[in-house]
Structures are given as C-alpha cells and as structure tokens.
C-alpha cells in the first residue's frame, strides 16, 4: 500500500515536467492484468518491445516460435538518456510500447510518471534469481516491483598488462596505491597517464561513489532523502580532484576520439570501468587486443572487496499495456530462462543480472582472450558490488555533475564544491516537482 501512495506522490513530477501537454488519458489497465493470456482467444497477443541491446529481435524470434499466442515485435531504439525521454513522451501521449528496456537510473523517473506497471504478483517466484542489491534497483526499496533486472555493470579495473610489466608497476589494490602508481608512471613515461577523470560520465563517478558506500537517495516512509554530498562521495571526489590537480591523472573525457587515440597509443594505462568494457575497448582501441587485463577495483581500505555499478538495465512493463500478464511472462522468460539468458549473453553481449547465469559464463571475451578467468573475476566482483536507490530526477543530477565538474576542471576549484552543486540542484528540482523531502 505504501508503494501505491508513494507512486501517487511521485506522479506529481510528470505534471510538472510535461506541463501543458494535454492530459486525461484513461488509466485503463490493471483489470486485465490477472487474466491469463490464454483466456483471451482473439488471435495471438501482440506485444511491442523497445530495446537497444543488439540482436534482441533474434531472441524474440525464438520466443515467438515457442509461443504462438504471444508474439513480440522488437523495435530497436537508440539507447541512453534520449531513449528514456522518448519512452516518457510516448507514455504521456498514450502510445508507449508494451515492454521497454529501462536503465536502472531511469526507472525511478518512469515510476514517477506512472509509466511502468507494478508486476509484483507475477514476479514473486523469480525474486531469488537475483542478488538483493540488483533487486532493490527495480523495487526502489518499496513493496512494488517495477521491472525485471536484465543486465548489470559491476565495476572493475582494466589495465594494460604489457605496459604495467614494462614500467614495473604493481596492480594497485587500494586507491592509495593507484595514486602512487600514477606518480611513478609520470616519472617513467611523461607522455602517459595511468588514468583519466571524465567530467562527462556521471555514470562512472556514480559507480565509484557506490563503491565508497554512498547512498545518494533513499526513501523514508513518504519522503525522499537526498544525500549526494555525503562523506563517501566527497572522499571520492577529493581523491580524484587531488590527482588531477597534481597532474598525475589526465582530465579528458571517456569515449572521445582523443581518448580512443590515447588508448590505442598506449598513453592511457588503466580504465576503472564496468564489466561491459571489453565491448568498448574492442571498438575504440582495437590495437590493444590481448594486452589488457582485469583486476578488482582498488579499495578504500586494504582487505575490502567492494565495487559499484556503472550501467545495467531492466525490462519494464508499460503501465498502459492491455496485456500486462503476457508482457510480464515474456520479460520473465527473457531474463530468467536459461536458454534465453544464454542468447542474451551470446547475441546481445550483455552481462546477465541473474546470479546463476553469471557463474555459468564460459569463454572470456575475445578481446580478453589472454585472461581466461575473466568471467570468474567478474562474478567475484559482482558479489561485492553495492548500488543505491536512484532518485526520480537522475537526469538533473547527472547534468549538474557535468556542469559542476567541467567548471571544477577549468577553474581548478575543489571537486567537492561540484558535489555540493549536484546536491543543491537535485534537491531544488525535487522540491519544485512536489516531492516530499526529509531534511
């Protein structure tokens, strides 16, 4: 019940965000939810599914063959923040797809806009397939379930093994050692950097903050608590700020041509990234194939084994779909059926969210052929990864991150002031949207 009231409170944000866009679409739904798809004998149920993971249409084709009564059409979309905006607009206009691939950080904004259905009743049985941390990302810590976890992005440290050996660097086990290694490398090769701090990728920073134990949002009864400027986050920010100021860490953003070039030329030796990094490296730095290795993320205290998440997504069912049960059935199959997960791994190149599937992964990615225990490492890291509940306005927070850190890099102001501006922007936006905030 609490969840429903929360949902109603969250709905306010939509009115604010899309003010002026005619409203009053009938909220018809839910009545047909309990019905099994077989009970409606008017031809097969047709479902549309917006996803950006590659080859999802092939996976749906496998399902369609075995389930003539539920036919799924995949429409491949562009991913990222734009996908979330597009889905929200479609939901507002009354013609969203039945199913949507939803990144964990966007799910709360979907929930706030009443755009995704609560599928708790249908998913009770599969809860145990996922770790508690991942499950929390689709429940936001409430009683409701707003999606089924599909993939996850536990963070690890990717490093150039050949260059580490050449310069006699030790793989850092703590962030202190990482800083030391950065200084050593600058002395040995003044043109190379151990790593870079990107002011354009809030997702990466979020994962590092999670590793340090940050809890940016939490729900306390009826109200939200925002703690972006908490101690762990400030610690992470000041750590990177110090290294950048000292000049031992570069400050170019990820995924840019210059970054690609630095990776290819061996001028960038590490990348703290998520388990999906092999895909990026193989396209952006094809020259480094076989030269990289993976290690757990450096820790804040020696002996710990924590990590954070960068990316990952779930399959959510639209609140407006007339075929909620059928849609949930497909989403459940897609993310928990062993055969489907195998396809997801093989065709869509995702790192599955289901715990059992993570340990069943076999051969290492092609790019990491030199590291046969790649997936075992990933599974170990995944077990220690901790996330946090995302808030309903992650977009605002992430934009404030980019603005704040751009400014900090340019003017040399401390990184912690950028953190404070993220906190302030997020709180101001949530107040404006009508959320109740615990102070």
């Amino acid at each position: 019940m609490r969840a429903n009231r929360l949902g109603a409170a969250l709905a306010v944000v939509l009115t604010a965000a899309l003010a002026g866009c005619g409203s009053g679409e009938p909220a018809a739904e839910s009545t047909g939810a309990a019905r099994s798809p077989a009970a409606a004998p008017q031809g097969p149920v047709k479902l549309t599914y917006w996803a950006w993971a590659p080859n999802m249409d092939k996976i749906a084709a496998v399902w369609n063959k075995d389930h003539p009564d539920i036919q799924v059409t995949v429409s491949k979309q562009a991913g990222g923040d734009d996908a979330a905006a597009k889905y929200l607009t479609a939901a507002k206009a009354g013609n969203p797809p039945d199913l949507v691939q939803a990144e964990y950080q966007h799910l709360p904004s979907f929930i706030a806009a009443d755009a995704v259905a609560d599928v708790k009743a249908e998913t009770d049985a599969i809860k145990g397939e996922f770790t508690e941390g991942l499950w929390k990302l689709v429940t936001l810590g409430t009683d409701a379930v707003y999606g089924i976890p599909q993939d996850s992005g536990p963070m690890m440290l990717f490093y150039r093994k050949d260059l580490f050996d050449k310069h006699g660097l030790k793989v850092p086990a703590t962030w202190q050692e990482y800083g030391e290694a950065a200084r050593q490398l600058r002395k040995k090769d003044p043109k190379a950097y151990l790593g870079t701090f990107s002011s354009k990728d809030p997702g990466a920073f979020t994962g590092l903050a999670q590793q340090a134990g940050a809890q940016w949002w939490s729900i306390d009864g009826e109200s939200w608590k925002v703690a972006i400027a908490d101690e762990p986050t400030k610690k992470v920010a000041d750590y990177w700020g110090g290294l950048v100021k000292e000049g031992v860490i570069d400050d170019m953003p990820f995924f840019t041509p210059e970054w690609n070039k630095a990776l290819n030329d061996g001028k960038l030796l590490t990348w703290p990234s998520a388990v999906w990094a092999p895909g990026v490296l193989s396209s952006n730095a094809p020259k480094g194939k076989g030269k990289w290795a993976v290690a757990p993320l450096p820790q804040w205290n020696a002996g710990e084994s924590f990590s954070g998440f960068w990316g990952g997504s779930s399959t959510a069912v639209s609140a407006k779909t007339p075929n909620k049960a059928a849609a949930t059935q497909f989403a459940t199959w897609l993310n928990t059926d062993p055969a489907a997960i195998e396809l997801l791994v093989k065709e869509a190149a995702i790192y599955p969210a289901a715990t059992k599937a993570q340990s069943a992964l076999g051969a290492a990615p092609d790019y990491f052929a030199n590291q046969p225990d790649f997936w075992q490492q990933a599974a170990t890291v995944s077990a220690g990864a901790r996330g946090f509940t995302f808030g309903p306005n992650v977009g605002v927070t992430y934009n404030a991150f980019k603005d704040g850190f751009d400014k900090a890099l340019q003017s040399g102001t401390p990184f912690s002031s950028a953190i404070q501006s993220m906190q302030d922007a997020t709180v101001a936006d949530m107040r404006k949207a009508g959320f109740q905030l615990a102070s």
Partner: protein
Amino acid sequence: MATVTAATAHRRRARAGSRGPAGLAPTALLLVGALYCLFPVAWVLIAATKSPGELFSTSTLSFGTGFFDNVGELFAYRDGVFWLWAGNTLLYAGGGALLSTAVSAVSGYALAKYRFPGRNVIFNLLIGGILVPAVVLAIPQYLLFSKIGLADSHWAVLLPQILHPYSIYLARIYAAAAIPDSLLEAGRIDGAGEWHLLRRVAMPLMVPGMVTIFLFQFVAIWNNFLLPFIMLGDDGKFPLTVGLYTLLAAGANQPTLYNLILTGAFLSIVPLIALFLTMQRYWKTDLSSGAVK
C-alpha cells in the same frame, strides 16, 4: 537597353580592374568559407575509408584501406536495414518536398496575385510561423498525432513537413516578381480561366523558384532528426538519420560501430550532392523565359 547593360558591365569591369589586389580579399574570404564548409565533408569521406583499426590510430587526413569492407558490412548490418532506412528517407524527403513545393507554389501564387479578404492576416500569420522553429513544434505535433492515431506512421513524418511557412513566403515573393500582372491580364482577355492561367502561365514562370523550394525542403527533411525520432517507434520506419543514431547509441556493452556510422553518413550525403549538381541547371534557366516585351 543593350547598350546600357554593356556600359554597366564595362564600368563594373573597369572598377574591379582598377581596385587590383583589393579584389582578392572577397575571393579569399569565399575560399575560406568554402574550405570551412567542405572540410567536414572531406573528413567524413576520409574517415569512411578507414577500417575500425585505422580509425583512431592513423592520421586524420590519410585515407584508410577499409572502405569496401565498411560498405559491405554496412549493407549486411541487420540484413540490409540500411536500404530500408534509405528508402524511408527517400520517401520522406522526396514525397515531403514534392508535396510541400506544390502547396507552397499554389499558396504563394494565390497570396501574390489575388486580392481577397484576409489575405494580409494569412500572410502575417505565415511570417509569424517562420519565427517558430520546427524543433519547438515537434513534441506538440507528436501529442496531436497520437490523439488522432497517426503517431508511428509514415504520415506522422510527412504531414508536418508539407506546410512550411518559409517556403510559402518564398513562393509568394517569387510569384510577385516573376509573374507580371500584365501577362495574367492578357491571358484573361484571351479567355483563359483561372485554373488554366495557373497551369499554363504562372507555374512555368515559377519553376526556378519551385526548384529552390524543393531543394530546400528536400535537404531539410533529409537531414531532419528530431521529428522522426520523436514520431516513430517502429525501427522499420526510421529514416537514415534516426537509424544511424541507433548504431551510435547502442548501449555501452557492445562495440559502437563507428566505421559503419561514418560510412552510412557518407553514403547518405551522396544523393544530396548528386541532387544539387543535377538541379543546378534549373537555377540558371533564364528567369523570364516567358518574357514580356
């Protein structure tokens, strides 16, 4: 008349000659402008020839060796979805530009040559319409099209681009200048009906203007991203712009297909270049081929 023109031309030439090196400045400026516009195109061309391994490792301006591999890979991507997108783009741009040109020419002609109540109101509304960027209208249009059940259809992309205030404005200006009232009067005296006048007298005179409008609209629709991005959910209806974007933002857990995107971008501007080169001659046609003496 002829002597006057010759004299003017002579004087102009003389002046340009006497200015000497000062005349180089405009030429240099234009060359810089051309370079500024053409360099990105050249970059796309060069980048499209690079294999994935060469893209970020070889020098920016050196050609790669992977062009045909890229093209082959692009055409094979998702069973040739590139062709589907190219066909869609052609449909949106070609159909949209044709319809838009027809609507603009007729309305421009009517606004220029007929006096009727409300003419100025309509024209002022059009001027106002020019001031509203199409981008601003995309979301309201999407919500409206959703209401009438046309969202996610080909019409959702075609219809909003048919009525284009700026094109109507252009057509009106052009019709006012290119179609002499005396010619229409002469036609009326000879007993031609208004419909006949439009088809036989006005439209032929407006061809150069219509070509301009067609090209403007064709290019605008060809390059349009936001409207189809918002309107379309089904990837089988995407135009090239939105389709190539799905390759770019494909999620982090798999390689971004930069080489395919660049090759696709390059191939998608080839028809535009061809169109400009072939349509150019219509601009050169004597604007008064229907001449009045």
